[in-house]
């Protein structure tokens, strides 16, 4: 600073700014290397100034504590001290400028030792706990013979090292930890994502449903188990008392069984799909199961429209006959087997429908031919165009499989019709087919 002060006296304002700028740049470069908390002043800066801390009050509690600590193992201890010698401001400033590292040496903390002031009862209790496997220190606390800090200020000065726990104590804490782990497991199941972890989600929902359905019974039963009626009973008498209570409760609460049956606890696992335990229903015997438990047969059924009494979209119909999905919709220059990957997921089908609707509103480009031909507007005769429009309209409006077949017979290529018939036969032979003509 002094050089800046001098600079002001000796130089112009611009030169001063330049020098300041230089100093700031240098400071910025040094910033990474500097301890940012080091706000120490240089010797030069402090010329003419004096820095002196107020002397500690001799009666201050903190001062007394410091003196006590200094008295123990003073040879190895370094404590932060302020130079109280007057008339040596440079030394004081230097000491203050350097951040003092407080090292806690061996002397300030000590090992735990029993205080020895135990009553005979306390000693007996402590011995009992130690025989069970607790350490002396733990036994002292368990026996109520512990003499530790009684207030906050004393606790701050507490200077006894902690001790390694006994295996016995650790085993008990493990039990606490297991409750914590169980709770976490419970929350994980309740909050599981049904898409990502269907079985975990199902387990959580089943657990929740069971708890809801048996809440009243569980509460009453637990109260009975804690009651005085059972306290002194053991063995056969205890069993008989509990059995009689249960029979009576169920007689008085006949709706409990109904509630349990209606809770549909196991339904959650059925919905989540077959993960372990084998396939069910239509998938039985099909072997492999899909991601959400859907078997190959069920996929075929869905693809072929079995069970879909309502709309079969034109996209889907086209894919039956070998459509190729392009940006312009389903088109085909060759027949493709939908089982080889041409069939689309329901969600994709929906997206495809929306795209198709958007496309029909856009400028004419390639027109999607729903029965499987790629066409160019210029190449198509008007009559054919009319027929295709009609076909497209029929499929979109009705979605009826038979009408698709009829249209194929009338307007489609022979190989397209052949493919469609073969798929329908395959489905029918698997026993899940819809009757021809049914809507």
């Amino acid at each position, binding site marked *: 600073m002094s050089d800046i002060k001098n600079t002001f006296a000796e130089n112009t304002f611009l030169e001063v700014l330049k020098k300041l700028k230089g100093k700031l740049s240098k400071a910025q470069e040094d910033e990474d290397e500097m301890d940012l908390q080091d706000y120490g002043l240089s010797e030069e800066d402090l010329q003419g100034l004096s820095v002196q801390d107020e002397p500690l009050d001799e009666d201050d509690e903190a001062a007394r504590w410091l003196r006590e600590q200094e008295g123990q193992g003073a040879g190895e201890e370094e404590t932060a001290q302020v130079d109280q010698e007057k008339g040596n401001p440079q030394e004081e400033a230097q000491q203050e400028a350097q951040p003092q590292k407080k090292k806690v040496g061996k002397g300030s903390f000590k090992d735990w030792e029993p205080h020895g002031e135990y009553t005979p009862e306390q000693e007996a209790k402590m011995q009992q706990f130690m025989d069970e496997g607790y350490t002396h220190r733990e036994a002292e606390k368990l026996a109520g013979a512990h003499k530790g800090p009684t207030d906050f200020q004393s606790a701050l000065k507490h200077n006894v090292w902690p001790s390694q726990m006994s*295996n016995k104590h650790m085993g008990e804490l493990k039990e606490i930890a297991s409750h914590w782990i169980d709770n976490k497991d419970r929350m994980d199941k309740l909050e599981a994502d049904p898409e990502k972890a269907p079985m975990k989600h199902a387990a959580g929902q089943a657990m929740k449903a069971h708890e809801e359905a048996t809440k009243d019974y569980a509460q009453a039963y637990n109260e009975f188990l804690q009651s005085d009626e059972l306290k002194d009973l053991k063995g056969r008498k205890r069993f008989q008392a509990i059995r009689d209570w249960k029979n009576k409760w169920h007689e008085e609460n006949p709706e409990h069984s109904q509630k349990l049956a209606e809770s549909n606890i196991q339904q959650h696992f059925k919905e989540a799909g077959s993960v372990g335990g084998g396939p069910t229903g239509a998938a039985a015997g099909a072997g492999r199961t899909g991601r959400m438990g859907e078997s190959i047969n069920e996929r075929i059924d869905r693809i072929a429209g079995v069970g879909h009494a309502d709309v079969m979209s034109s996209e889907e119909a086209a894919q039956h006959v070998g459509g190729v999905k392009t940006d312009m919709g389903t088109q085909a220059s060759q027949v493709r087997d939908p089982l080889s990957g041409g069939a689309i997921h329901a969600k994709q089908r929906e997206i495809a429908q929306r795209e198709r609707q958007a496309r029909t509103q856009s400028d004419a480009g390639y027109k999607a031919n729903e029965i499987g031909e790629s066409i160019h507007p210029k190449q198509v005769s008007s009559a054919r165009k009319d027929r295709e429009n009609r076909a497209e309209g029929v499929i979109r409006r009705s979605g009826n499989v038979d009408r698709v077949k009829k249209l194929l017979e009338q307007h489609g290529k022979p190989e397209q019709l052949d493919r469609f018939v073969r798929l329908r036969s395959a489905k029918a032979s698997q026993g899940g087919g819809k009757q021809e003509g049914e809507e």
Partner: protein
Amino acid sequence: MKINSFRELLVKKAEGDDSLQTLAKFVDSEVLAEKVLESLEKMARARHKGDTANLALRDFAQDMDPETEPHMIRDALGHHVSRYKAALKGGRQDLANQHAKQAFNIMNMTDRAQKHSGGKLAFEHVSPHPWERNKMTSTYDPDHPKVQEGKYRAGEFKTKTKGLSYRGSDFSHLQQAPHESYKKEVKRHGHAGAYPFEQIRVNGKHIHVDDHDPEEIAGYEAHPFDFHPIMDHYKEAAKNRDPKDDARYFEDKNQYYNESPHMDNFFDRHEKLEEQDPEAYAARGSKPADPVHGHLDVEPLDISDEKKVQSGSAGGKRDVKTKANLDPDKLHPDVLKVIKDTQPDLYAKITAPKEGGGEE
């Protein structure tokens, strides 16, 4: 918040629970590592077990009396293991297999049920996977198509072990030492010989294994708990159950507890045992029985090349390699203090002046 170590993570996670925090802060590193690995292993294997329990199993777990059903289960396991032992001594592997199968059946049910019991049932056992592996040792060759595909690795076992869900009828693998591929797990629990049935505990008490005279064992004998309807219903997957199945279970359960002689038979036997020797009866389960396979000459699995980690109290001696990252300047003074108390050799090593960059 930057976390520098697993210990810091544990301390952070245990916020709000002073006891756990203290444990996490000051426990010895080796002990901590051992406990964590043990817990992780148990969690990995058993965490999901029982999650898909059907209604019958949930009902059984919730409805049990903490003093009756666990006692019956412990007694049933003791009964079958005792007869298994006697059958082996008499050279009757077929009879031993029958009793071992039923013991595993009961253990499997208990393991699944404990999760739903609200703390009324606690089941501990040594996992039988390392012993079961002796039965199925064929591995994938490098030129196996699935190895070529990348689905499996060469040397990987073709068949997974089932543990308590083992469905075979031959249990002779329990009389061998565990398979060496499970060395790490075996090192942790230390049971390197034949399968330790005597370590099974139900609600903290060991099963009671009697020493029957093989001559007196005529054939297979069931225990009253074998007739509990839960043994017929627990295995069925929840998604395969109908309300009719559940109704059948509740009916059978009602009949078992109210009308059948099984509960009376059970209590008759125990009242007689208590009358004969009250002191011995009260001490049942307080410590493990003699090794069930003790009469067999089984070469234990060699786990001696790496030191078995012992969990010891303060002052216990260890022989642990100094780790390169144990820099005393970077350790908290409290941690240094704990190391000094429990491992004076290690403390001396890490606080010794370093020589020319040489570290173990």
